[in-house]
């Protein structure tokens, strides 16, 4: 029996509060990652100041840059939500890429039988199909966890590989448009079904869908009994069962909704950008989403901000390549550095909490 638990005292006020810490640590992590990245580009003989200048310019320096950034941020917000929503229920699901590509595939083929229909129902149908398939895919990870005891992190990651393989199998086989020669693709969707461009912004309507879903997630998690119940389930499944919550349903439900988000992201990419499903869909949005969610501490509104940041970084990659001849993967290195620093900061925060508790 530890005497610690029995100590009758109110803990002395810490130097920084938990909420200050939760903002400060990711910021510090990004700064540290930037410092390491600066050293990295210096090693390549580049002036770090020039590189950072180009990142800002390429991501946020012009209206063209902003359009590029925003259209990349749209899927990033959704795949970020796909990590953050299950995180509320205590799940670490990282297989967004698989749900995204399958959702994209579903979106690409679902309207093919319907030629000459009204655009709006077709657009909704594409998003719905993408969400449904993505939800099913993540739902598998939830079912495996609750009924077979399989760790959801590992199963979702492996399911992601299976999803990508299924995607290749179908786009290069059954669903292939014979006219697509060098890049196997599905039949292109009717151009009139493509998501419109938002007036005045110059970015596709998928951005609005992402923002609406992020706001909806924020409201549901923060202000409804569903969000409350989900936090109970994530905080302690034992207690959730004691108070009569159907834990299996909540866990699987959260997985399905999250997979739906990733699936819609894929459908948006198809319906707004690609117009067809092919390997251009597999560019790592799902994995970037993990970074987005962790950096945003799984808070839906923060995810929007972080998705802009990461979207901007990715948008600037081509500028870095053109101006400085830095390889395409440079931005991936930067992202990786940020991710590692965030994880380390999380671990340190955990330790800090434990020592202050003593």
């Amino acid at each position: 029996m530890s005497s610690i638990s029995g100590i009758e005292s109110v803990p002395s006020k810490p130097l920084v509060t938990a909420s200050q810490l939760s903002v400060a640590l990711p910021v510090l992590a990004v700064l540290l990652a930037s410092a390491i990245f600066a050293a990295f580009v210096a090693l390549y003989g580049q002036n770090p100041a020039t590189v950072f200048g180009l990142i800002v310019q390429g991501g946020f320096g012009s209206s063209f840059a902003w359009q590029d950034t925003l259209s990349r941020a749209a899927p990033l917000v959704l795949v970020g939500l796909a990590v953050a929503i299950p995180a509320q229920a205590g799940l670490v699901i990282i297989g967004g890429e698989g749900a995204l590509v399958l959702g994209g595939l579903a979106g690409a083929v679902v309207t093919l039988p319907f030629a000459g229909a009204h655009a709006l129902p077709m657009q909704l149908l594409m998003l719905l199909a993408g969400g449904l398939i993505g939800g099913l895919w993540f739902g598998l990870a939830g079912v495996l966890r609750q009924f077979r005891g399989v760790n959801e992190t590992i199963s979702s990651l492996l399911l992601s590989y299976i999803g990508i393989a299924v995607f290749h199998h179908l786009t290069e086989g059954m669903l292939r448009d014979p006219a697509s020669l060098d890049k196997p693709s599905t039949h292109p969707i009717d151009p009139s079904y493509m998501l419109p461009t938002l007036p005045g912004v110059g970015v596709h309507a998928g951005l609005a869908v992402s923002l609406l879903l992020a706001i909806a997630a924020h409201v549901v998690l923060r202000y409804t009994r569903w969000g409350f119940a989900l936090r109970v389930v994530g905080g302690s499944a034992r207690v959730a069962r004691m108070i009569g919550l159907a834990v299996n349903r909540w866990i699987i439900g959260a997985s399905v909704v999250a997979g739906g988000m990733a699936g819609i992201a894929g459908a948006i990419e198809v319906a707004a950008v690609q117009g067809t499903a092919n390997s251009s869909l597999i560019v790592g949005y799902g994995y970037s989403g993990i970074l987005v969610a962790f950096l945003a501490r799984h808070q839906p509104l923060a995810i929007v901000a972080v998705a802009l940041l990461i979207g901007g970084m990715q948008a600037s990659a081509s500028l870095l390549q053109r101006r400085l001849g830095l390889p395409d993967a440079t931005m991936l290195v930067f992202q990786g550095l940020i991710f590692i620093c965030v994880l380390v900061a999380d671990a340190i925060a955990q330790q800090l909490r434990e020592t202050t508790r003593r």
Partner: protein
Amino acid sequence: MSVPQVELKNMTKRFGANLALNNVSLLIGSGTVHALLGENGAGKSTLVKCLVGFYHPDEGHIQVDGREHRLNSPKDADALGIGMVYQHFTLVPSMTVAQNLVVSGARLPAYINWQSELRRLGEVTRKLPFHVPLDVRVSQLSAGEKQKAEIVKQLYLGRKLLILDEPTSVLTPAEADEVLGHVRSLARTGELSAILISHKFHEVRRFADDVTVLRRGASVRTGAVADLTDDALAEAMIGEPVSKMVQHAPKSQPKSDIVLSISDLRVNGDNGLPAVKDLSLEVRAGEIVGIAGVSGNGQLELVEALMGQRDRSGTMTVSGSSFNGTRQEIARLGVYGLPQEPLKNACVDRMSLAENLALRNFDRVPLCRGIAMNYGALADQAERLVAQFRVKAPGLNASMSALSGGNVQRAVLARELTQDVRLLVASNPTFGLDFVACEETYRRILEARNGGAAVLLISEDLDELLGLVDRVLVMSAGRIVHEVSAEGADKRVIGKYMAGLKAA
């Protein structure tokens, strides 16, 4: 190495602003058993953690045979022959006793010569007054045998001062007597000295030579056990003269209607094997039925099945309706619970106190309309409950882990007992709580009973149980093996059933 005399001098230890130890001195004479009495949070564990090198005292020092030593780590304590027997077993279940003992050595060679190790082990155990089978897997030992094996391990490691942290909490009365009897005789023959942490007076009286009582980190009474009466010890412990702790509550006449009815209940344990076997019982409105038993005989699984936390087969009805632990059933039939270790089993520690107080009714008016939560109403309710149950906390938004054990329990009592309770399942509800919180818990349970609720009380503390219940059932190996009314209860008989020595 002879048995040293160990002395702690003027030990002070602070955790932040909190004084956990306040100038405590303790002398353990060579070959004596020194009992450490005190409520939870009195500083017993902090003191012995200083002695085994886990904590470093802010002031004071430790003398062994008159020489001062600094204990920077458990290794230093090991070098001085100081070892601790924990409440919970530290043996690897899948290995034999002999293997456990050999691998417990601090400096294990890369290549283990099992034959010579086993020979050395045999020499150690031959001299002991009791026998522990060496080539049996630990998982097959009874709790008493495991505790003995822990003690053998300490002797094998050459420890001369054993610290026993509530060693009998997991043993039957007979096993407890045997284990502590051995400790005492080993001390008598000069094999070791011991510090016995306990809160059971009769153990202290029978097995210890000296006793020190701690209260709020200070040593308030110390002396030979023979010179101190139970009343004097109790008074020192709680700091005020004792009125009899729980008055044997006036037995209310149980009403005839059966609230909880279980028949042929089967529940599997974590290992997939049946832990509760064809168990049937009934609890009537206005009565407390106690389940006595040594921990690990299926009580945990029984409680979890009743609370809907574990799959089961067999029928369970509450007031005639079948009960599966859904939210609607809980609210309609009034089934609530007081689990042991409430922070872990009844609270979500990453949620706030106010939110934890709302776990039972967060989805009902006024806390929630439609799907929209009303956090203002949630805060109002929390404020009301905190005042009513005198929960001390840094604030309504404090996380549960910022509360002390007693206040966590008060919060859970506030949440569970302000509902319309018709069946209360309490499982070791006072485990780890201080005196005041215990008494309050008892009072609230009795109030619930007097209000007409049916109460099922599972407890490993037989004294607690007999003080509260109207009827006792004894559980052993997953079955009810004995039933007796509280008036007719005989502790020795119950103890035999608990130990599985008598079958139903």
